């Protein structure tokens, strides 16, 4: 018997909903089968905690006296975007201070950037805000240098265009000579290491591979508070090749999410420094999946053994769009600490914290069990495998023949 969102929410309110984590669901379906599991379990909680560069914060600082239309803004010396209304500011996670040496002294350290500003705000720390403006009749003020604090901001919300990637490639380095510094971490020369970044069997979109329950309006766990899926994420690519179980074999679906920073915690939104690459933000994100029917029970019982990811060379193939994957490996193999690439054993390192992913799934489980977190039915589902939507490269049409005459 299929269940509805309303029925599941009634059970949650009555404190009678059966809520298990995606890890626990594996055992439930193994023991009882998908049909029985679907009857017994109402919600499966998922979690992921990894660097998600495409993230940022929307802030409204409140008006100054006299009023000012910010033209340029720096938060702890990190530039923020102001091409919006007077005192609205968007700070991107990967933004660097203007005086950061970046990779001029390679590999750069990238000790502080937009993500760290966001983490500092969430931690309740004072952040220095500097602003300049050209001045207008309605907004005459031209300069500002002040401390701000999240508690005084009218709004502070994360607005992340691309989070929770459904699967991701495994990065290796085929260069014989040099270590390389990537957003996947430091990759040691000559297949010295392999890095991967997914919570695998706990990851939200891997537990609902066709986005049957995750869509616009889905209420989620974001950074320790509640948030929402607000749109498909950038680069959402539902037509990637899939395994027999429906799970994409490489990076596929993504979601755009939004959530109130005033509810968040600095252990769940963490500014990170990717050596020789730049700044990123590690985002704690969890999605509850309603077990509407037997198919959802089967999907949420997916295990690391049954999720595969492509192995990609980041020394040449990935940056230059050459060649295909060097093979595929399962997350069970990745988590064993060693994979085989081109007949050689390569040690693996994760970038995504499985410990924190599990903690998120468990925290969300508690929220739902306690009746304080209800499920929301999406207003619209995300484009799925049958949508025909793909992910294209930029068709470059050089302006003025690229300057060559």
């Amino acid at each position, binding site marked *: 018997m299929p269940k509805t969102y309303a029925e599941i929410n009634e059970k949650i309110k009555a404190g009678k909903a059966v809520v298990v984590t995606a890890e626990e669901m594996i055992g439930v379906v193994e023991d009882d089968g998908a049909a029985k599991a679907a009857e017994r379990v109402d919600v499966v909680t998922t979690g992921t905690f*990894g660097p998600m560069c495409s993230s940022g914060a929307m802030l409204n600082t409140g008006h100054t006296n006299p009023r000012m239309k910010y033209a340029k803004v720096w938060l702890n010396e990190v530039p923020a975007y102001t091409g919006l209304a007077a005192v609205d500011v968007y700070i991107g996670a990967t933004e660097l201070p203007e005086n950061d040496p970046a990779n001029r002294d390679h590999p750069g350290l990238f000790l502080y950037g937009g993500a760290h500003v966001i983490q500092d705000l969430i931690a309740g720390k004072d952040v220095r805000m500097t602003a300049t403006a050209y001045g207008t009749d309605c907004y005459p003020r031209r300069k500002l240098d002040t401390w701000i604090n999240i508690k005084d901001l009218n709004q502070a919300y994360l607005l992340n265009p691309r989070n929770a990637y459904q699967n991701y490639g495994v990065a290796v380095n085929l260069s014989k000579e040099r270590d390389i510094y990537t957003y996947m971490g430091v990759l040691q020369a000559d297949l010295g*290491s392999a890095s991967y970044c997914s919570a695998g069997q706990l990851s939200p979109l891997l537990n609902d591979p066709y986005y049957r329950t995750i869509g616009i309006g889905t209420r989620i766990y974001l950074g320790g508070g509640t948030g929402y899926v607000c749109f498909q994420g950038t680069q959402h690519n539902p037509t990637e090749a899939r395994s027999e179980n429906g799970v994409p074999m490489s990076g596929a679906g993504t979601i755009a999410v939004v959530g109130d920073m005033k509810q968040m915690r600095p252990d769940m939104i963490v500014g*990170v*420094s*990717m050596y020789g690459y730049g700044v990123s933000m590690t985002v704690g994100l969890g999605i509850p999946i309603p077990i509407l029917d037997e198919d959802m029970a089967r999907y949420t019982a997916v295990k690391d053994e049954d999720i595969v990811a492509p192995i990609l060379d980041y020394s040449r193939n990935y940056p230059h769009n050459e060649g295909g994957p060097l093979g595929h490996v399962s997350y069970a193999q990745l*988590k064993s*600490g060693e994979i085989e690439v081109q007949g050689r054993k390569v040690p693996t390192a*994760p970038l995504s*914290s499985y410990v*924190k992913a599990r903690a998120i799934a468990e925290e969300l489980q508690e929220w739902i069990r306690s009746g304080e977190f209800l499920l929301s039915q999406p207003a619209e589902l995300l484009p799925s495998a049958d949508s025909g939507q793909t992910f294209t490269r930029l068709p470059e049409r050089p302006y003025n023949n690229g300057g060559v005459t």
Partner: protein
Amino acid sequence: MHFPQQLIDEPIISGLVRTYDLGFNILRASITPQQEGLMVIVLDGTEENLTAALKNAQQKGVRIEPLEKEVVRNESKCTECGACITICPTKALTIDAETRHVSFDPDKCIACELCVPVCPPRAMEIAF
């Protein structure tokens, strides 16, 4: 061990190892753009021989710097992602196959500091 430019071509380590009957384990070796050599090495032998070997190396112009620094993990910053585990040459940083907890064993750490810049939340810190 810091090797000045003029010593780069000399087989100093093999000489010491033979003469003083030492065991050795090279953890890191590099030559800087200014042609100076840097080697992080564990030497093993009798105290008498070790002292003599180090004195011999110093007389040849090798500068010796004992690794007295200590790398510590700032537990409040560590997210237990595991990005550090392949870079650590002594397996002081490991990830539990079952629980996925990342542990740091200070007894195995040789303070080479390779993990320090590699840690995304910068949880590995140098203490003096």
